[in-house]
């Protein structure tokens, strides 16, 4: 039986109020071809590790008692913890700010079920194979609903952890009402041989503002497929920072859709890869309406035998006049054995737009490295001083300084481990 057939079989067994939507996804999956190296969007990412993995598709076991998630110092976030796809936080006990409502697959009222059904798999494009897998298998859905005009001060942090040999499939849906503002941090991690999918769909209402972070911190043997799909309405503003560590197999798809005029999107992404880690980021920005702007900065450092894939597509539809879009991908390759496959893609069907894109791959500046070493600075430290600056710039641009302070030493430590000559 093929891997996909196992997913389909299991999905057909699930019986809950999302079943009609799961069946729709199954129908699409039944027509879908399994990606190979000849599939354009999977050209540089092999699924062999997934096909071969020992771990069988099985119902997640009862989550083991995990140590409590360490808080981010000073942040005082509203933390929602998933372990192996099961929500551990009792949302009925949370003190929620006015204008903020949470519900889940299990707790949803009749009306909340209607809202959920109207959004599930609606923002996320159908072309993402593992997004469909998540449609079928998601065993928990977290719905975050921000009422019109609400300003939610406390950052909402969604943490997903996956333990050894386990699977995790969770879904997050976010509706930010008109003129509302909120900060959402998504943090997903596993240091073990595990398999997880995590997809998030966000509707950003008129003039709404979202500060968003997506920290994909899976490492080692973890296999992960994720996506974040955001729809912007008139004058909505998105400021999103993504971080990627690499693992056995890690793939993230981001879609930002300008479905309203004068919307603004800023997306910064960082990846730091070492050993033989693999990390694949595909981003697609759709400008369907005029006067939108997108600024996307993707920067990565690849060491040892690691493998980075970046595909950044900007699609400006006919009629999306006065769009301003810029996409930059900068890479540093620390080792000759590492690989970076980067491809910016522009598709423009409007004539009055400003658009720029580019990708670079740099290597270590040996002369500068030597200079620093003649001043008594050790090689690994000198490498950080020379090369961390362009990553530091993106850390400094994170709107939340507490989060930046928490992340920076972790990224520096990771960078130190990455170079192997």
């Amino acid at each position, binding site marked *: 039986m093929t891997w996909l057939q196992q997913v389909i079989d299991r999905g057909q067994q699930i019986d809950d109020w999302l079943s009609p939507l799961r069946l729709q996804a199954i129908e699409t999956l039944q027509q879908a071809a399994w990606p190979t190296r000849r599939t354009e969007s999977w050209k540089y990412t092999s699924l062999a590790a997934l096909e071969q993995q020992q771990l069988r598709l099985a119902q997640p076991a009862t989550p083991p008692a995990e140590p409590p998630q360490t808080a981010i110092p000073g942040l005082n976030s509203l933390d929602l913890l998933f372990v192996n796809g099961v929500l551990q936080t009792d949302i009925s006990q949370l003190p929620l700010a006015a204008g903020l409502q949470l519900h889940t697959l299990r707790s949803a009222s009749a009306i909340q079920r209607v809202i959920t059904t109207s959004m599930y798999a609606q923002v996320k494009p159908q072309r993402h194979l593992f997004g469909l897998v998540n449609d079928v298998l998601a065993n928990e859905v977290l719905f975050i609903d921000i009422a019109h005009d609400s300003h939610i001060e406390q950052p909402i942090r969604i943490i997903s952890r996956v333990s050894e040999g386990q699977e995790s499939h969770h879904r997050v849906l976010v509706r930010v009402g008109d003129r509302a503002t909120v900060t959402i941090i998504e943090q997903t991690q596993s240091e073990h041989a595990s398999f997880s999918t995590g997809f998030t769909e966000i509707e950003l209402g008129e003039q709404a503002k979202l500060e968003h972070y997506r920290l994909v911190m899976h490492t080692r043997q973890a296999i992960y497929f994720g996506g974040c799909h955001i729809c912007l309405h008139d004058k909505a503003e998105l400021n999103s920072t993504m971080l990627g560590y690499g693992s056995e197999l890690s793939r993230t798809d981001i879609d930002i859709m300008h479905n309203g005029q004068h919307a603004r999107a800023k997306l910064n992404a960082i990846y730091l890869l070492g050993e033989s880690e693999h990390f694949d980021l595909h981003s697609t920005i759709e400008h369907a309406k005029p006067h939108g702007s997108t600024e996307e900065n993707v920067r990565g450092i690849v060491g040892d035998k690691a493998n980075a894939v970046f595909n950044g597509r900007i699609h400006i539809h006919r009629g999306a006049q006065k769009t301003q879009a810029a996409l930059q991908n900068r890479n540093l390759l620390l080792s000759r054995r590492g690989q970076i496959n980067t491809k910016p893609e522009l598709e423009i069907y409007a004539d009055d737009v400003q658009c720029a894109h580019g990708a670079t791959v740099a290597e270590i*500046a040996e002369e500068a490295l*030597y*200079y620093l070493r003649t001043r*008594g*600075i050790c090689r690994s430290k000198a490498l950080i001083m020379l090369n961390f600056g362009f990553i530091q710039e993106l850390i400094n641009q994170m709107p939340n300084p507490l989060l930046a302070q928490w992340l920076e030493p972790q990224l520096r430590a990771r960078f130190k481990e990455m170079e192997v000559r």
Partner: protein
Amino acid sequence: MLTIKNLHASVEQKNILNGLNLSIKQGEVHAIMGPNGAGKSTLGYVLSGRDGYQVTDGEVDFQGNNLLELDVEQRARHGLFLAFQYPVEIPGVSNMELMKESVNAVRQHRAETPLTAAEFLKKAKAACQQVQLPLEFLKRGINEGFSGGEKKRNEIMQMILLEPSLCILDESDSGLDVDALQIVANGVNSQRDGKRSFIVITHYQRLLDFIEPDFVHILANGKIVKTGDAALAKQIEKEGYAFLGLDNSAEASA
């Protein structure tokens, strides 16, 4: 302090140093002169441990350590300092960041406590003042957009801060006008304390009017071909290298 015996070194399979001998005691100032392409900079690079400069024969003892076995950074921490002929520009790393790391790496090696920010700043200010480098140069990227003279002064500033035991100055005088030359020379002289040793590589005698050497060596074809005192430098200034039977054209075109 430093004993070099029969040093042979090559770059890209090309022999540059061919049996160089040199012995330097504590507190001494040795000038090394020689035509362009003689291997003067190569000597500095080899002593600093630069990649690609291969030692094919010979020994170097630095204060009782086998210098050739140490990494670049370890040599620096043991007290070897090289002021470059062409200091590299490193935008993105400030002079300040470099020197803080650098001073504390050396201090750690000497089992001294790291400097506090205030202590460091005080020393850095004094060092900048000594070479008349405005303080805001500390905030700029290393050598970024510095003029030729500013780069040379920046090297001497670093040397003053690091308090090395052996300073190798590779043409720290080239491209400087007389005023700048004097500033560099004063910076160097301020560090002469009877213990610290210097190798002053220069093309011109005029630097030696300001920094008085104990010995003057002529380096040609990869070895020391003649050693004398300050008078030797004066003779070369007057007569060129011809009296040594060496090609003088390099000197003329420099």
